[in-house]
């Protein structure tokens, strides 16, 4: 807990996390407006309202990755290790903090986007309701997704130790690499099990998936498993390498 508090002070005392949070909000609510406003909101849907939340998740990964790569950039990682020489605890504290922030930010942005679209859409063809568990999952599912994506980004940042590389990978991977893999014959059949495709299943409506894809909860577990794998690699390298 002590270390989580120290990490909180670190994150709160620089400007970039605030900018990232503003950007997440802008992206999340911007797409909600686009979904709810045109044609009296006839085309409004939960999935459409939350398109911006997925982009927000990418921005949140940038925030999370920067929380470790800037430490390498400016050498404060050494100040950190001098104060907390057990590196496992440092990585754990960072991951816990990013996870908790992700849980809150993801849930808040998704809920806000949903209700904004609902308020803007005067006459939606499909009513915008949060009544079934399936519908709640599609909205609040963004909390766990942000949390896991954040931990994944901290891991990638720890492995690469530099901002540009980590940000490039984290942005290109879901947008480009996973789509390209899905185009490869045979190998492409496994594309739905890649981390971000699997994670996206958790916020998709039940019954809309292709039969090769994981179910929503399988998707969440697969996404978490990828994050854990990267986290363990990050921990191994963090302990092995000289600071």
């Amino acid at each position, binding site marked *: 807990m002590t270390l989580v508090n120290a990490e909180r002070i670190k994150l709160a*005392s620089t400007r970039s996390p605030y900018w990232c949070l503003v950007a997440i909000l802008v992206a999340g609510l911007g797409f909600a407006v686009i979904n709810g406003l045109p044609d009296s909101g006839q085309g409004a849907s939960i999935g459409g309202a939350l398109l911006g939340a997925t982009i927000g998740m990418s921005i949140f990964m940038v925030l999370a990755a920067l929380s470790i790569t800037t430490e390498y950039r400016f050498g404060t990682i050494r100040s*950190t290790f001098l104060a907390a020489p057990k590196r496992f605890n440092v990585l754990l504290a960072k991951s816990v903090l990013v996870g908790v922030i992700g849980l809150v930010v993801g849930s808040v942005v998704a809920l806000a986007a949903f209700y904004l679209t609902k308020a803007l859409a005067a006459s939606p063809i499909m009513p915008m309701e949060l009544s079934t568990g399936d519908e709640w999952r599609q909205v609040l599912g963004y909390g766990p997704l942000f949390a896991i994506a954040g931990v994944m980004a901290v891991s990638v940042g720890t492995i690469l130790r530099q901002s540009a590389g980590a940000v490039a990978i984290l942005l290109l991977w879901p947008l480009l690499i996973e789509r390209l893999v899905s185009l490869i014959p045979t190998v492409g059949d496994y594309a739905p099990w890649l981390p971000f495709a699997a994670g996206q299943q958790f916020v998709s409506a039940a019954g809309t998936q292709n039969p090769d894809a994981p179910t929503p909860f399988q998707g969440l577990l697969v996404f978490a498993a990828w994050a854990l794998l990267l986290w363990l690699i990050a921990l191994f390298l963090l302990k092995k390498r*000289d600071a």
Partner: protein
Amino acid sequence: MIEVIGLTKQYGSATVVNDLSFTVRKGTVTGFLGPNGAGKSTTMRMILGLDTPTKGRALIFGEPYDNLSKPLTKVGSLLDANWIHPNRSARSHLRFLAATNNINAKRVDKVLDTVGLTKVAGRAAGKFSLGMKQRLGLAAALLGDPQILIFDEPVNGLDPEGIFWIRTLMKDLAAEGRAVLVSSHLMSEMALTADHLIVIGAGKLIADSSTADFIARSTRASVRVRSPQLAQLRVALQEAGLEITDLDDALEVNEAPIEQIGDIAFRAGLPLHELAGQSGSLEQAFIRLTADSVEYSDPGGGPGGPPLASPSFDAPGNAQLEGDPR
């Protein structure tokens, strides 16, 4: 309080620190001296658990640094004043360090006051001058009121006032019974600050002794004589078996009592215009001692070369060798 036992660090085939052993005792300022690239910073990083030794170990209060709980309350260190986030305020920098070790937040204001940064504590540390960054680094080192302090080249880049301030601070800390380990490549600086010296070259221990002993042992006393009949004097001194160096208008006699030279001249009936004892410069002694181990030596500064005018060991060609070996 610090024990270094057979410490060795290799990067590939290069051995940066080679089987180094020494101890640092409380109540003293221990100077850690060596030319650039001798392995001082690497040794300090291994003592502080940042780098893993290839062989050997470094113990603090009998334990490796990694095992210390709340390490900032036991060891304070300043290895690099630039290890700060440029947008983070000085106070926030110290606050997160304090939080890591459960140090009372009041202590942050206290150390800011000690180093004289109270007025600028809310400003982004990236805008600080090097001297102010050094002060912030010292504040971080003092934060946990530790019994051991480790400073890497703390006077580098400071103005004379800052140098005097740090020197006084280190002596005061040792006088309070703390152990202070301070590295430098400046022999003259260490002669003023350190009670004890550990000298290394190319990663190996060269000397481990009190500063006074080191100076007495390693500086060669000589006598300068001038005479209108220099040639005859030279012959007379040589007949007495003395080692002579020719200067422009004088002779330098190495390691001979000044009285003996006066007597020789009197017996030979030679007039003297000057007879003066001289103690060798510390820098020369240091250069002579580390000459064999200097990795990148300055062609002009070796033994027998002209005395260096500058008190620094830095030659233009060999700066920037200390520090990160990667």
